[in-house]
């Protein structure tokens, strides 16, 4: 269990890794990876997700499903920060023969629970996993394990999500937590312009979910939201994280054009300088504390 300050530093280092990976790859998705960094860091480091990098396939683990599979760099970054993936492997992203596929492949990389990348499929998979884990707990009498699934907001335009949301609430899968990275951007523009999913909180409540809305870049708030979500035993819970696509790199923030473009060497240098400046502030604050 890490302090908020420590988690902020992890997220800062993840942003660094994301930029370096994408620059080395020459392609990939910086915007959504950066918007999800604080959520992923808090999930993996706050103690809410029971996952041990020393025993990644333990039957006692919680599961994380990255439904927005294109933000694989954020997943690889957190796995590397946890010491599960060798840090030097990160720059093999998207290259021939790499374990770090452009979209995550569970056959190559055991910290990845299931291959994703085609949007809209993760919530159904997570619901099936939650059912399976509930059956396991019923049979063994052991603690009920949880499933956390991270989806984008544009991704929620896929109809399959609503099949899964209806199903999970009907089945009262209370060990399922859906995390929505609500950065309001998709490839063709703002979600609210392309095809609005609003009011998302009311829709999810109407579907029978416990819904929490929170600032997706405030580690303390993310931690509190996750705690509230896992405490909910009457229904599955969803957290709508209000985020900024490209968060942490000024020229990428809230720009649809940075959904799926890698930074040039010059742009990466500027991005890293900004990230490192924040990192230095966080380190100094940690020292003072």
């Amino acid at each position, binding site marked *: 269990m890490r302090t908020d300050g420590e988690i902020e530093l992890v997220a800062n280092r993840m942003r660094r890794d994301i930029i370096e990976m994408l620059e080395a790859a020459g392609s990939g998705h910086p915007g959504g990876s950066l918007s999800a960094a604080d959520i992923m860091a808090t999930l993996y480091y706050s103690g809410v997700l029971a996952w041990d990098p020393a025993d990644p396939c333990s039957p006692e683990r919680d599961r994380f499903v990255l439904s927005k599979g294109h933000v694989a760099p954020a997943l690889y970054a957190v796995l590397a920060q946890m010491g599960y993936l060798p840090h030097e492997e990160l720059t093999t992203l998207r290259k021939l023969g790499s374990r770090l596929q452009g979209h995550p492949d*569970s056959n190559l990389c055991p910290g990845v629970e299931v291959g994703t990348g085609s949007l809209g*499929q993760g919530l*159904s998979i*997570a619901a099936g*996993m939650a059912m399976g*884990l509930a*059956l396991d707990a019923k049979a063994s009498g052991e603690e009920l394990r949880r499933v956390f699934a991270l989806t984008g907001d544009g991704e929620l335009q896929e*109809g399959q999500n609503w099949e899964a949301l209806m*199903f999970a609430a009907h089945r009262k899968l209370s060990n399922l937590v859906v995390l929505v990275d609500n950065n309001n951007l998709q490839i063709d523009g703002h979600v609210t312009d392309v095809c609005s999913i609003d009011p998302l909180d009311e829709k999810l409540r109407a579907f029978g979910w416990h819904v929490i809305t929170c600032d997706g870049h405030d580690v303390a708030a993310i931690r509190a939201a996750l705690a509230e979500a896992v405490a909910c035993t009457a229904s599955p819970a969803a957290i709508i994280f209000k985020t900024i696509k490209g968060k942490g790199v000024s020229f990428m923030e809230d720009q649809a054009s940075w959904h799926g473009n890698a930074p040039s060497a010059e742009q990466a240098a500027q991005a890293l300088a900004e990230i490192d400046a924040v990192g230095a502030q966080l380190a100094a604050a940690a020292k003072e504390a």
Partner: protein
Amino acid sequence: MAKATRAAFGPTLLELINEGVDVMAVDADLAGSTTTAKVAAEYPDRFVEVGIAEQNMIGVASGLALTGRTVFTGSFAVFGSGRCWEQIRNTVCVSNLDVKVCPTHAGITVGPDGETHQALEDISLMRVLPHMRVLVPADYNAARAAIRFAAKTPGPFYVRMGRENLPEVYGEDFAIDSEAFAQVVREGSDISIMACGVELAHALKAAELLAEEGVSAEVVDIMSVKPLDEETILASAGKTGLVLTVEEHSIYGGMGSAVAELLAEKQPCRVSRLGMTGFGQSGTAADLLEHYGLDAAGIAARVRELLA
């Protein structure tokens, strides 16, 4: 006794559960028709009803498989393979999961429901997917053997089953121990009729009609469309030198295409494909098979043309 291939689905899953095999069934509002309701009735924890939501059905099955279970999905073949094809591709096959896609009501013999409900493309759609094995059983006992084999072999399978009662070709103790399964069910020397599913019984009947005319037709059951039993197919084609494939499925990309591809590459000979070339229509199964030339008389007529 004539029984439908689909009638083997639920009972065989029950048989496996009773033997201690950790299987589950997921269905999409068609549990009665597919017979997975039999699992629900006896083992409610081993059955998941998702409602009319085939994409979610495949995702939920995948999630259950990821917690260590062998999961069978149902629905009708049009919806259970087509509506959720991309989920089968990108979740089941990409991650190589223990999900067995086993829809029923495939082919033209669905009958009166008409073209929207007659899956004529599912073999093609499944055959093209990496990791996916495709089995098309020809009777109740073959369907039972296919389901048992799929349950005990890791990874994705497609087992194609139908609605109509079919005459028995195989005995009750029939089992398969190889995924590349084909079998010569009638020996002959003038032509090899290679059939799968519903068409096997019609091919056998056609061979009888032809025998009366002095034509010796060999009949081969191509139960496994992927992978193909190359040895059996090449041996039969080598013996007769003329192949007719018969399936209640599109001739584009189905079993006939698979056999033709194999023969073109390894042992070229004349191959003719009998099957559907467009959508079907409403009618009884028997009337439709006759109309599209897929009954014994139709098969025999095509053989006569080929030998003329």
